[in-house]
């Protein structure tokens, strides 16, 4: 049975100044909202954050930016955030941009004990600077190393006390790989389940990757509300 945190504040005590953390989500979808809020209140500083995006100015990881808690950001797209831009231009924030598929694979590799792999993405681009290029069967590939974190914060729809997680729709995104790549992984779940309630064939993250859970109600802000009108 996993540790059941009594609050998000207790959970984020695993994170210290200078920790490297991974935070699940694509845009604002699938982010562990309450763990991020607790991390803001914890006021830990000098974080290295690995996440596909960096939230928006007033939500998600944007809140950590606003409180200047991030020293370095590793992601693939950070264009939704004015404060991000300001801090980068002011030299307050280091940013390492990685192609999205490479980022996903680097995180998977980290969790899977693969120290490095080759990928075609980024060959001949600024991403290749300082990276080994190697030819396999006539095509050039870049060497990319795995990524791990001290703590991973993920969000799931359901989680049981064994740490098994199921994600909802496109809120899955980076969460499963990050769950595996964190030395400590904390899952914020919308619904807690008892062991055996979740279908064993339908688990997205097996419980071995999760060290603790906390239940949390989600706001789920929408970035680009797009609808069809009835004809």
């Amino acid at each position, binding site marked *: 049975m996993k540790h059941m945190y009594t609050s998000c504040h207790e959970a984020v005590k695993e994170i210290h100044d200078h920790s490297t953390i991974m935070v699940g989500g694509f845009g604002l979808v699938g982010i562990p909202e309450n763990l991020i809020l607790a991390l803001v209140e914890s006021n830990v500083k000098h974080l290295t954050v690995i996440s596909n995006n960096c939230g928006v100015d007033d939500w998600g990881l944007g809140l950590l930016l606003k409180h200047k808690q991030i020293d370095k950001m590793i992601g693939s797209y950070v264009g939704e955030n004015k404060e991000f831009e300001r801090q980068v231009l002011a030299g307050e924030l280091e940013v390492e941009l990685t192609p999205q*598929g490479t980022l996903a694979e680097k995180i998977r590799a980290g969790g899977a004990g693969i120290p490095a792999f080759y990928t075609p993405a980024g060959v001949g681009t600024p991403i290749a600077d300082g990276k080994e290029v190697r030819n396999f069967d006539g095509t050039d590939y870049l060497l990319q190393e795995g990524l791990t974190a001290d703590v991973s914060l993920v969000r799931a729809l359901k989680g049981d006390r064994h740490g098994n997680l199921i994600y909802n729709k496109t809120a899955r995104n980076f969460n499963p790989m990050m769950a595996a790549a964190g030395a400590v992984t904390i899952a914020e779940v919308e619904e807690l389940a008892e062991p055996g309630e979740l279908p064993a064939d339908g688990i997205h993250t097996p419980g071995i990757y999760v060290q603790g859970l906390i239940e949390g109600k989600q706001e789920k802000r929408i970035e680009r509300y797009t609808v*069809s009108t009835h004809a």
Partner: protein
Amino acid sequence: MAVKMDKAATRELITRRAEQEIESGFYVNLGIGMPTMVANYIQPEKDVVLQSENGLLGIGRSPYEDEVDPDLINAGKETVTAAPGAAYCDSAESFAMIRGEHLDLAILGGMEVAENGDLANWMIPGKMIKGMGGAMDIVHGSKKVVIIMDHVNKHGDPKILKACKLPLTGKGVVDRIITDRAVMDVTEAGLVLVEIVEGWSVEEIKASTEAELIISDELLEISQ
């Protein structure tokens, strides 16, 4: 004789032509922005599966208001629905599909394309860098990469060049370019002009293209 069209008409012209690249049975990734609009023109008799790199194989139409699920978005972060027979997956699996060349076609936007198929579409030095998102993976993974964009930039300068000036997204990755003036294929011999939009002359296309153009023997005209 140059052709004047407003922005909406230009976009419709380009996206309708891009739709013709999609064959029934195809798995397709549409980039953010204008490429996403191509979905609006896919002929209903075509059996097409749209992939969204954030983990959805089988994008449906936009939701009605009462169907909106904040956990269901496309790569452009717009709320969408899932088509019947859709499958969700994580980002590593999604890019495994892409990198592993399981997609038949990707339609993406471009800032510059070179005659050798180099593509630049992610950063302008000196401006804030927002990131490449999934573009660098997608250009390597798809069996065919089609770039759709205006033929010239807002200053009237060519975007189809002998060599890209902007930092690349991918080297030698583009198969076809569709613009508001023409369709061009990247071939071993060079860049071949294969279609021309009604109202434009070959000379006008050449004049607005920095890259060397080979004129196809079977040059077609696209009616507006």
